[in-house]
């Protein structure tokens, strides 16, 4: 079974090897000319060039967009309005009531996103930790079950949303089961609480396999002798979990926490297909708001969307810095060990 990827690999790599050989002499010459720093530039250049053109530059453009108004899409046709869009987004009569805000949908979406992220990340960590703990036990078929929980990670978000919509809608699988169990069918996606829960459940379903693997790796890295020592001491299992397993899983939990946070804030496709933001606006999250305002809606306003995305970006950058801080601490801890 592994032979197929290997031969495929050989077919792909043969021409690549040839190319790699061919470009060695000029690079050697360049290395002699510029030294290691020059080579660092060579290695960074392709990625940074693409990155610059297709990621960085659009981001900068986005900042410019956020300071313009109008329905025109080409930047040249748009009029400069300074920080008006930000002002519009951030004006509220009463900051505890989204409805009193100048751009009430933005605040509704931001509030929804906040609650979604808090609950989804907690659920995600809880579920994937439990799953990792279970997969870490001495069970038959561990490899199989590990794969089982990973399966949804491979599905595209659109498919995930589609699948669950076919389960949760009025004519869906869940209602079929309810009817067969003699219960009244329910229009799940029409109920604020159910729909909100569904968006959380579905995103946990779709991504938990990934986080489970990260946590499982952490669990397996915990030395066996620690457990044996605890057993010698007669430590009760619960205490072993809280005082040994959990602290040593800390770095992995931190990674999971931050990744899940970042992805949670970015949630879009699954929910867009699943609930479309409804019922009402109860599952309208920030990315959907931005996408609709900037691109999809007939009330299109790219400037406003750009401003909203930059506000969201600022929050994300803060999260990133938190992650950097955490991972740096882990690196230091790692090097000390």
């Amino acid at each position: 079974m592994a032979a197929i990827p290997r031969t495929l690999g050989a077919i792909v790599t043969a021409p690549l090897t040839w190319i790699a050989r061919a470009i060695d002499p000029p690079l050697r010459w360049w290395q002699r000319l510029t030294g290691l720093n020059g080579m660092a530039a060579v290695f960074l250049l392709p990625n940074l060039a693409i990155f610059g053109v297709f990621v960085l530059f659009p981001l900068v453009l986005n900042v410019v967009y956020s300071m313009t108004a109008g329905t025109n899409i080409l930047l040249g046709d748009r009029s400069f309005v300074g920080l008006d869009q930000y002002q519009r987004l951030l004006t509220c009569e009463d900051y505890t009531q989204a409805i009193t805000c100048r751009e009430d949908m933005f605040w509704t979406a931001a509030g929804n996103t906040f609650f979604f992220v808090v609950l989804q990340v907690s659920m995600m960590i809880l579920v994937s930790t439990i799953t990792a703990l279970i997969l870490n036990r001495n069970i038959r078929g561990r490899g199989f079950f590990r794969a089982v929980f990973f399966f949804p990670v491979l599905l595209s978000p659109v498919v995930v949303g589609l699948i669950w919509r076919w389960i949760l809608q009025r004519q869906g699988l869940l209602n079929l089961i309810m009817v067969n169990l003699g219960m009244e069918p329910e229009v799940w996606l029409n109920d604020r609480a159910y729909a909100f829960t569904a968006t959380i459940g579905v995103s946990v379903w779709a991504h938990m396999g990934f986080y489970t693997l990260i946590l499982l790796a952490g669990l397996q890295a915990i030395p066996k002798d620690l457990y044996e020592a605890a057993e010698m001491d007669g430590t009760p299992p619960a205490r072993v979990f809280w005082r040994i397993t959990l602290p040593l899983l800390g770095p992995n939990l931190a990674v999971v926490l931050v990744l899940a946070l970042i992805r949670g804030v970015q949630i879009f496709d699954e929910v867009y297909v699943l609930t479309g933001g409804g019922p009402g606006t109860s599952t309208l999250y920030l990315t959907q708001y931005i996408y609709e305002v900037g691109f999809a809606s007939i009330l299109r306003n790219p400037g406003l969307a750009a401003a909203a995305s930059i506000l969201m970006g600022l929050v994300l950058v803060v999260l990133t810095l938190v992650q950097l801080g955490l991972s740096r601490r882990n690196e230091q801890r790692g090097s000390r060990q």
Partner: protein
Amino acid sequence: MKLATSLAALAVAGLGTAALAQDDPVELRMMWYSDGIEGEVMQDLLDRFEEQNPDIDVVLDNVAYQVIQEQLPIQLASGQGPDIARVTNLKEQAQHWLDLREHVEDPAYWDENFGNRFDWMREDGSDAIPGFLTQLTMVGGFANRTLFEQAGVEIPGDDATWDEWVEASDQVAQDQGLVAAFAVDRSGHRISGPNVSYGGDYIGEDGMPAEIDDGTMEYVTKLVNWTKEGKQLPEIWVSAAGTTYRSGADDFINAQIPFLYSGSWQVANLSTKIGDAFDWVAIGSPCGDVGCSGLAGGAALVGIKYTDHPEEVARVMDYLASEEVVREFSERTLFLPAHQGVVEAGGLDFQSEDPNVPPALERFVQASNETLPAADALPAWKWANAYYGALVTRISQAMAGEITLEEARELMNRDIADVVQNASQ
């Protein structure tokens, strides 16, 4: 020397393209979306066209409607796009359509047969021939006659009001144990006919959007209340945010609701999916205080201004707009034709074995004569989409209990004002 070389190069290049032009047919791109089988029909028609015109090659790019709605505007804004496109955002994008007047064989034919709707798709005050409607759509309702019969409820007559319709449907629903009495598509466009029937008028005296008036609010209030009472199937409107379109057709097809308010484009869809399961009829639009208005609309095939081959585009358009092709297209797709000659000649032989189809289509043709002037003005009005968007967004919130009707009214006014203000910047 240099000059000579470049001249030579130019000459070679010129010869090259000339030679190419002779050998290879001109390739035209037609961007098209499909709700049903119309893509296949169009492909068929184009194949026939290419047979007759070997010098033109029309490539039909079937796209998702999302592409027409979201991506095409950006392409157009940057002076690009296909040569021909099937679009629905007729008025707002009008500046990008190609004026075919110079290029078509017989502008008089176009004026005569399509002229009454050119204003829907050209800028105010222009006399351009921008294209033609591939189909005319008419908003209207459908009733499940079998369900009505089983419940022993009389189908309300042509002059029945919305209240009477909802009342009757509700009786059917209760008698038959259905989930709800009726559903209106989640779309600002769909409720605008009824709004007008209750005296609503969107257009201010200066041609700019007016504030939401009491007529509009009257119907909106009814609709919100019906939803809250569970008479309207709630998930259609409530279970989406923003301007997302949702139709109640599936629930009608599934005999979960006896009354659907949608439009003529559903005829083919209903026919395919309902089959023989029950009898259904088109009912036009229920009445309000002022009239029994639906709302016309449609998708149009337009030439794009940025094409390199306006002459060829015009030839394709001439072909597709010709009476027999329009007739065939309508007969096969079960679309209402927008061609004056075809409509007047009548006697369309709709290709369906379903006995429900011909009367339904006839009923829609009849309904198109019952529209009120305030509704007729909307398709050619620049700000209609802004109004529709605000309506659907805020009414849904009111139905979901997030805001009151009064708040919804204020927010709709603000949303519309925002759009106007943003567009003027």
